[in-house]
Structure formats: C-alpha cells, structure tokens
C-alpha cells in the first residue's frame, strides 16, 4: 500500500515538474519565436492574427525597418559605443583592479569600498545630474558621453571580476619580469593581462551586453538620430511608425539577435562571469 502511494506521489511530482519546465520554455522562447516568424509576414497576414507561418517568407519588413527608421545608423552607433566602452572599461578598470589586488597599502580597503558603492546607486536616480554634467562638459548628445557613462556603469562588476582573478596570479610572475628588465606598465600589459584573458573575456562580455542593451541614458543623453543607439530604435518605432507592424517585428528581431548570438556563443563565460560578479551583489 505504502509503496503504491509513493509511486503515485512520484509520478505526480514528475508530471508537475514536466508542466513547470514546459511552461518555462514556452514563456521564454514562445514570444521570441512568434515575433521571429511574424517578422516575415505581410502586414495583412499579421493583422489577421494567428500563430501560423507566413505564406511566403519575405524580407520586406526588414527592408522597411532599415529604410523608414535610421536603423543602420543606430546599429553603427551601438557597435561603436559598445566596442569602445568595452575595451576602455576592461583595460582601464583592470589597471585599478590590479593595483588593488597587488599593493598592500592602507587605502586598499577604501578603494575597494569606493568602487563597490556604485552597485547601490540606481542609474535612473542620476539621470538629471549626469545630463547636467554632460551638458557642462559639452558631451551631451555625443557618443563619447555615452561611452564614458557605460564604462563607469560596468565599473563595480569589472573591478570585482578582475581583482579576484589577479589575486590568483602568483607574484613571482611579475618579479621575474622585473628581473628581466621589464617596466611596471610593460609587465602589466604583456605578462599580466595575457594571463588574465579568461577574466578579461568575462568582464568584456558582461560590459558589452550592458552597453548593447542600455536604454535610459541612451534616451536621455542623446537627442539626434545620428547619435542614438539600438534600444532607442524600438522606442522610435513605437512612437513614430505605430502602424507599420511588420517593420516593428523586424526591428525587434534585429535588436535582439546580436545579444542572443553573444550569449549562445559565449554562454559558459557569461555564466561564470555572472557567478563571479554576483558574489559581490
């Protein structure tokens, strides 16, 4: 009797788990797939609703999206901003992380604390002050302004990831380099950074995704289309071309595809990076 009961209980739990997992997959993948399939439909097919496949796979919506909104420009800006901010972020912040990891001096704790305070400050609270600072510095409505801000928003996680990794590199590495006559900076660039490649990769991916997806500062610090980034393209579509649904579908797919590729291709590093970054908060 007891055995039979526990078998039934086991089956029920299995069934519940199956339903739960299926639901999770549907809610995560369903909307994306539906938008992807719909992006090839004609406007009429879209408006008639339904979940079916398009009668003909046409790229018209993509061409529309690229021509009626300045998506190529937004794309270009996103690429420039994300790459420059990512390179700047990992390089400049690695320098700081290295200093904190290597020198034993009394201000170490202070700097560590200072750099993690950033985590506790929501970016949205700083919208107006940063707008003000950028205007004063004549960096408003410029890609440079966005790059500086994105570099700084990746500060806590990059410093944390890099610092933890530098601590695992034995000091003898640098010492032998100095013995061979290499200077401090050269040792850092040609010995330490190459060793820290895995951590640099992780920090770079997280920073890249941050830059690629950022919305609120891209919206408030830029005003001309020649300076805006991809997430704003969607906002632009929604407010200006509300009736061209096909182009909206296509634009959404164009915005999400790079993030998805980066994630799928570099999954393990993203995951380990999140794990490393999160111990910090």
């Amino acid at each position, binding site marked *: 009797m007891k055995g039979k009961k526990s078998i039934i209980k086991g089956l029920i739990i299995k069934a519940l788990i199956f339903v739960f997992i299926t639901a999770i997959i549907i809610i995560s993948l369903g909307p994306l797939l539906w938008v992807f399939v719909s992006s090839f439909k004609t406007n009429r097919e879209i408006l008639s609703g339904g979940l079916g496949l398009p009668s003909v796979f046409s790229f018209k919506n993509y061409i529309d999206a690229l021509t009626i909104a300045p998506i190529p420009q937004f794309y270009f800006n996103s690429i420039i901003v994300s790459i420059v901010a990512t390179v700047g972020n990992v390089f400049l912040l690695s320098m700081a992380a290295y*200093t904190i990891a290597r020198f034993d001096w009394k201000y170490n704790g202070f700097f560590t604390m200072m750099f993690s305070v950033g985590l506790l400050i929501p970016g*949205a*609270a700083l919208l107006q002050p940063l707008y003000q600072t950028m205007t004063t510095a004549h960096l408003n409505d410029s890609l440079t302004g966005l790059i500086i801000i994105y570099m700084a928003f990746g500060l806590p996680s990059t410093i944390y990831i890099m610092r933890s990794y530098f601590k695992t590199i034995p000091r003898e590495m640098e010492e*032998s380099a100095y013995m061979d006559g290499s200077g401090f900076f050269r040792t850092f660039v040609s010995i330490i950074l190459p060793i820290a490649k895995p951590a640099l990769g992780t920090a770079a991916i997280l920073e890249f995704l941050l830059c690629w997806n950022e*919305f*609120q500062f891209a919206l408030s610090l830029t005003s001309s289309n020649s300076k805006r980034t991809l997430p704003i393209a969607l906002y632009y579509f*929604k407010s200006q071309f509300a009736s061209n649904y096909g182009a909206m579908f296509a634009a959404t797919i164009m*915005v999400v595809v790079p993030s998805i590729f980066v*994630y799928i291709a570099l999954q393990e590093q993203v995951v380990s990076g999140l794990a490393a970054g999160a111990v910090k*908060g």
Partner: protein
Amino acid sequence: MIHRKGTIGRCTTMNISKKWRFIFLLPATALFLFVYAVPVATLIGTSFTEWIVASEPVFIGIDNYIELFSDEEFLQATWNTIIWMFLQSTIHIAIGVMLALILARKKFYWKFTRTVFMLPNIISSAAVGMLFVLLLNPSFGAVNSVLTQLGFTDLPNWFMSRETSFISVTMTWLPYAGIVTILLMAEMTSLSDSIMEAAIMDGATEMQKNIYIVLPLTKTIIGTTTILGATSMLQKLDLVMMTTKGAPGNMTMNLPLYVYNTAFIANDFGLANTSGVLMIILGLVAVAIINRIYKTENHYY
C-alpha cells in the same frame, strides 16, 4: 633563479610603486567621481533647491520633500515600485529557485532549459517591452489569438485597461528569473558531494534534501540574487516606457519613470533630484531589509 623570490624583485616593485599606483588608479577613480560621486553630491545638494531648467537653483529647504509626499503621482510611483520589489523578491525568486532545484539534477534537458530561460534576461529590456507590446496587441497579438481560439471573448486591451495594465507590465519581467537560476545552479554544483551522500545514507528524500540541506547552504546566494532583483526594480524605466508610459492614470508609474518625466518633460530638476534621493534611500532600505532576512552582510561588501 635565486633572485626570483629574493629581495630585489620586491624592492623593484616598491620603488616604482608610488608613481604607478597613482597612474593605475587614476582612470577608475576619475570615472567613479565623474559618474557616481559628483552626480550623487549634485543630487543631494539640489534636492533642497527650486531648480527649473535654464534658471539658477534657489535654496528652498525641504519644500521639495514635502511636495513629493503630497504628490499623488509620486506616491503611486513609489507604491508600485515597492510592490514590484516585493513581487520580485518573492514570486520571481521562487520561480528561479524552483527551476534551479529541478535543473541541478542534470537531466538531459537542463542545459537547453537553462539557455532558453536566460534569453529574456540577456536581450535588452526595451526589446522585451516591445515583444510584449506585440504579443498583447488587442487586434493581432498571439495572446489574444490563442484566447479567442479557446473561446474567450471580450478580451481587454491588456496594457491600456485599468484592470489589467499593472499585471501586464508585471508579466513582462516576473516570469524571467534566469539569473537567479544560473547563480543558484553554480552554487549548488559546488556543494560538496559528501554532504549529499550522507543525507542519502540517512534516508532523506529528494524533497527533504532540498529543504534541509541545499536551501540553507545556498541561503547567501539566494539573498544576493534577491538584492540584485529588488534593486533592478529601480531601473525599470525601459519596460514601462516601452509598454504603458505609466498609463492608464498612474496605474503603472514607477520611480525611474517619475524621475525621467520630472526632469525631462516637466523640466523640474530640483524635484527630479529629490525623487532621485528618495529612490536611492528606498534601494538602501530594501538592501538592508533583505540582508537582514538572509543575513548576507558579510558577503555583500
């Protein structure tokens, strides 16, 4: 080889250290000052001023704070933000934890599910907002198509009707606890096998193992993800902006959108910064409460 660990190496480090220490810390410190320290100081300073765009800030004491606490829109925004933080800290975390417990058994589907579940967390939330705008569109959205097939009629305009707008915006993020799952799984796989084996020897069922061993051992990381999640609710400008812009009425208004509107639509910089200060305080309070519940203090800093 003799020198490798010898004094010369360390001496060299010491001698050049001061100059390089300064140079190496400079860019990061400059970024910190420019993007965090100075803006926060500005925020606090100007929160006590009347400052409309293009004019000079005038000191008015705590008038802005008083004004905010009698401003219905602000109170609604704060209330919504708090509710969302609470939902995030309970339902959202529960979904993530449950999935992590299931997937940690490493069935054949675990990696696929993990990857798929992360996707909405990886793409920009403006795009997630857009996905839902299309999905819930009253005339052609997939949700209504399915519901109509199932025989439902009189479906609401999900984002625009008073009854459904709040829950619709909530649904754009509530099911997606991918980060919680990933972090927890990382922690679970690092738990020592001997503890698990001991539990199995003692005859613990799967459920007992999870409740009495796995969850207590991963409490810290659950606390950390709760903090990450709750504070992310102070960043949800994009989702609200893409879906409802706070409408109908102020039903879906949240603090980031309130700050944005006050600063860039109403051009009332003083008031915007006062709400920014209160938003930071709300974040700190949330972190303190969650730390308290999960006792994560030591690990957080």
